[in-house]
């Protein structure tokens, strides 16, 4: 049977199942095949905080969404074209996101009376008329998998576990994905259990063959490779890119990396990744708590290391006092906050931008510090290098604000050459000349940074601490005038960094005099959805400018100028308007906020509507 092949420019697939069904792995492998094929792509995993919520229930549903295209794309996509639903819970939890006409591939074996009851279906939606708006492909994935594995020495239960590979095989056929990498991946993953490896490969191939032979799928789809800039690419998640960025910062600064960390979702993967690269001289220290994690990192920084601590919002709250100590002692320190939904424990696996004000001001006293926020998963690499550059050059703690969406999302990344990365090396203080006094708080006139005098250097013995320092000498001082001066110097040092960061760039195809009235501003992970929304507006003839802040403290020197160049400034944030409040206070600009705090990234369509409303309003 010759099947029809249809060309598509882009596809959004969502794999959904029980958290034990291996949906994240399935998504990862489909992503790897897609990356290898050369499409541009963007992914969004979505999983419960519970490791194994009760099987078959709505809270236990785990999903992985992948958007791939023959052109460059900016987001994991608003709404799936295809939903793979491994059970009734996965169908029910995701149906609301499916546009009419989308394909549903449902594992009919799991649509049992009991499973249907668990999620409140009176009858199977596959058998009544409730799904007529969609194209449903009922496939008995479990039993087909078991049948395909009959020749293997496996229990029925073990054979059933390979059903995700059957699904992967079917989808790989449906979208013409290469299969070799998945087969060698399975061989490696189960190298110690060759029987399991063979079974998974057999299930994968059976899924492929099923697509080829069955009549339920009459069409397969091709999405041509995207014309990306020449270079070597790999797929990378935000957390992995951030870890690599820290390693790159260590290499390019010549400082040994010391990570003090305490496990916390969604930041733990950075600790895991860095722990695997000890041959770079990286010391990873899993501390007894968040406070000890940052304390150890600061202690190591005092000793001349690139000190880093990684955490999420609740951990930042605990670390605040130590970060204040780093402000006072003016030592380099990188504090990575992979933001998640709050307050308190909130929704640990869901994303948010709600820690900005805590990063800026969440310490006692006047304790300014630089804040840097990456805008995409791969940008976590460059943002980490930038955070380290500032920390080392200005001897200051730096907050690096990633979030759960960036951390777990992935995209293709053009791999840079190590030699092309910035040199961020710095010099430690050396012994003073004969007869000269060492002044631990004497500042570089340009950067206002104090000397980094590490133990082991003769002649530089000195004492630092959290008590206010006398200017120049660093001795304890309670002098009112000195305190006022030091408060202002610490602020001036951070403010001065504005001269050392790129200006805020505006993407405005019509130029400054082109009549564009609306600027959409963003920061952090909203870049993708905002840029995708801006494209939609322009495609339909609308005029809108876009700018994105990577440095939130200090702001680029031209920020005020940019904001006042447009009639209206729209600022979407996944919080209740934290950056908007800062910009209003500083520049007296009447920012229009758009805020949703649902634990999910914005959708491009949603933002396009908001932008259009602002354009249309008087």
């Amino acid at each position, binding site marked *: 049977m010759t099947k029809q092949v249809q060309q598509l420019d882009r596809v959004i697939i969502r794999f959904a199942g029980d958290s034990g069904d291996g949906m994240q792995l399935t998504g990862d492998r489909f992503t790897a095949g897609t990356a290898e094929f050369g499409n541009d792509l963007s992914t969004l995993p979505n999983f419960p905080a519970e490791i194994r919520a009760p099987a078959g229930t709505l809270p236990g549903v785990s999903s992985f969404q992948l958007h791939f295209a023959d052109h460059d794309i900016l987001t994991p996509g608003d709404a799936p074209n295809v939903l793979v639903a491994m059970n009734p819970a996965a169908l029910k939890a995701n149906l609301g996101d499916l546009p009419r006409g989308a394909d549903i591939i449902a594992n009919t074996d799991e649509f049992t009376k009991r499973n249907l009851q668990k999620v409140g279906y009176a009858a199977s939606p596959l058998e009544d008329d409730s799904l007529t708006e969609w194209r449903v492909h009922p496939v008995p994935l479990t039993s087909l998998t078991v049948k395909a594995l009959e020749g293997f020495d496996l229990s029925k239960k073990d054979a059933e576990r390979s059903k995700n590979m059957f699904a992967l095989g079917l989808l790989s056929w449906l979208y013409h994905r290469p299969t070799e990498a998945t087969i060698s991946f399975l061989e490696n993953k189960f190298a110690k259990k060759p029987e399991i490896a063979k079974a998974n490969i057999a299930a994968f191939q059976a899924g492929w063959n099923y697509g080829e032979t069955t009549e339920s799928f009459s069409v397969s789809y091709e999405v041509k490779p995207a014309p990306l800039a020449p270079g070597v690419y790999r797929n990378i998640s935000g957390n992995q890119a951030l870890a690599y960025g820290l390693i790159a910062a260590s290499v390019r600064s010549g400082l040994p990396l010391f990570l003090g960390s305490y496990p916390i979702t969604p930041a733990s993967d950075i600790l895991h990744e860095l722990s695997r690269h000890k041959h770079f001289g990286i010391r990873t220290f899993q501390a*007894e708590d968040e406070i000890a994690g940052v304390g150890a990192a*600061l202690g190591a920084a005092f000793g001349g290391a690139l000190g880093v601590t990684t955490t999420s919002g609740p951990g930042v709250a605990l670390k605040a006092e130590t970060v204040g100590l780093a402000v006072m002692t003016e030592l380099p320190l990188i504090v990575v906050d992979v933001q998640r939904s709050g307050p308190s424990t909130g929704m640990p696996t869901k994303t948010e931008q709600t820690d900005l004000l805590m990063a800026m001001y969440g310490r006692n006293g006047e304790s300014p510090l630089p804040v840097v926020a990456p805008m995409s998963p791969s940008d976590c690499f460059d943002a980490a290098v930038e955070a380290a550059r500032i920390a080392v050059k200005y001897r200051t703690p730096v907050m690096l604000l990633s979030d759960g969406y960036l951390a777990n999302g992935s995209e293709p990344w053009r791999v840079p050459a190590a030699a092309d990365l910035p040199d961020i090396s710095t010099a430690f203080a050396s012994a003073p000349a004969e007869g000269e006094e060492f002044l631990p708080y004497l500042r570089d006139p340009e950067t206002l940074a104090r000397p980094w005098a590490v133990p082991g250097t003769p002649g530089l013995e000195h004492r630092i*601490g959290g008590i206010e320092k006398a200017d120049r000498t660093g001795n304890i001082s309670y002098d009112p005038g000195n305190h006022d001066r030091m408060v202002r110097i610490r602020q001036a040092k951070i403010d001065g960094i504005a001269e050392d960061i790129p200006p805020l760039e505006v993407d405005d195809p019509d130029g400054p005099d082109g009549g564009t009235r609306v600027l959409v501003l963003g920061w952090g992970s909203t870049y993708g959805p905002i840029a995708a929304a801006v494209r939609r507006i322009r495609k339909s003839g609308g005029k809108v400018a876009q700018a994105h802040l990577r440095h939130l403290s200090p702001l680029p020197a031209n920020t005020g100028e940019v904001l006042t160049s447009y009639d209206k400034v729209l600022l979407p944030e996944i919080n209740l308007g934290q950056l908007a409040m800062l910009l209003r206070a500083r520049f007296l600009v009447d920012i229009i906020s758009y805020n949703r705090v649902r634990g999910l990234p914005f959708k491009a369509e949603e933002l396009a509507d908001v932008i259009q409303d602002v354009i249309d309003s008087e």
Partner: protein
Amino acid sequence: MSELLSGPGLNGRGLALVPKSDAKQSMKEYKSDQEVRWCPGCGDYAILAAVQSFVPELGLKRENMVFVSGIGCSSRFPYYMNTYGFHSIHGRAPAIATGLAASRPDLSVWVITGDGDSLSIGGNHLIHALRRNVNLNILLFNNRIYGLTKGQYSPTSEIGKVTKSTPMGSLDKPFNPISLAIGAEASFVARTIDSDRKHLQSVLREAAEHKGTSLVEIYQNCNIFNDGAFDQLKDPEQRDDITLRLEHGQPIASASKAVRRAADGGIEVVPRAEVAENEILVHDAHRADPSLAFALSRLDEPAFAHVPIGVFRSVDRPSYDELMSAQLEEAVAQRGPGSLDDLLLSGDTWRIG
């Protein structure tokens, strides 16, 4: 290692990686130019003088010594030492020192802390430093009171302590710092007293040379808020009777009392005249099992009935920093030194153009 275990109470590796000074050093070099600001008569003066006069004997390069402290009266200590120093925040000195010592094995790192700093707000960091066994020396100045906040009871104050925050007496049972440290399986645990400089210095020397975390509890008198807390140990009439000197390989006894195995399996203190010399328990600081050292730490219940002074426990086990360095070396041996380009290009890659 077995030699070390049967040696004179030192594993001796504590300073092995710290550079030595060729020049002869004096106490004067270790005094900073800062004015000492403790209350007149504070026990901290005696401890400072004892430390300043003892460290030159270690023969280390002064720039390779670091004193790290938390918050409290005792935590001002680093300002007065002409070494590197870090006066940090309340309770966190062991954490900060852990990062420093784990990343810089060439430093001799000292933590100066008090009973409130280390056992209340910083209790978690203390026990984890002890179990982890990073190469640090923790000097716990125990005056059984909060001094810098002006006289509230502390986690080592006796039950019923009347203070500003407990006008009807404190309700909570105090920690015994030695019991706590041994419970955390610290590799070196000792107690000494501010007024006995010779003993203080001998214990500090052992602590310095011990590889791993050493905890030294120093009974320290706060003459403003808790004066006389340790008078029994200083009173010539009774001190020799209640002080049990712990010396490795020596019988544990005071002038009038001795420690022996009790019939119920524990240990007990009995009049010395009632026990034959060979029945007196001989102190073994190097016993791997901490239970006997723990039993010794309980002999001062009720308070000051009998007070063991000296090294309760000194055992050799690998220190965290040694193990961490070894893992780094092993990783390099297995994989070669890290190459950033190789790392960035690891995994599945593809070329475009």
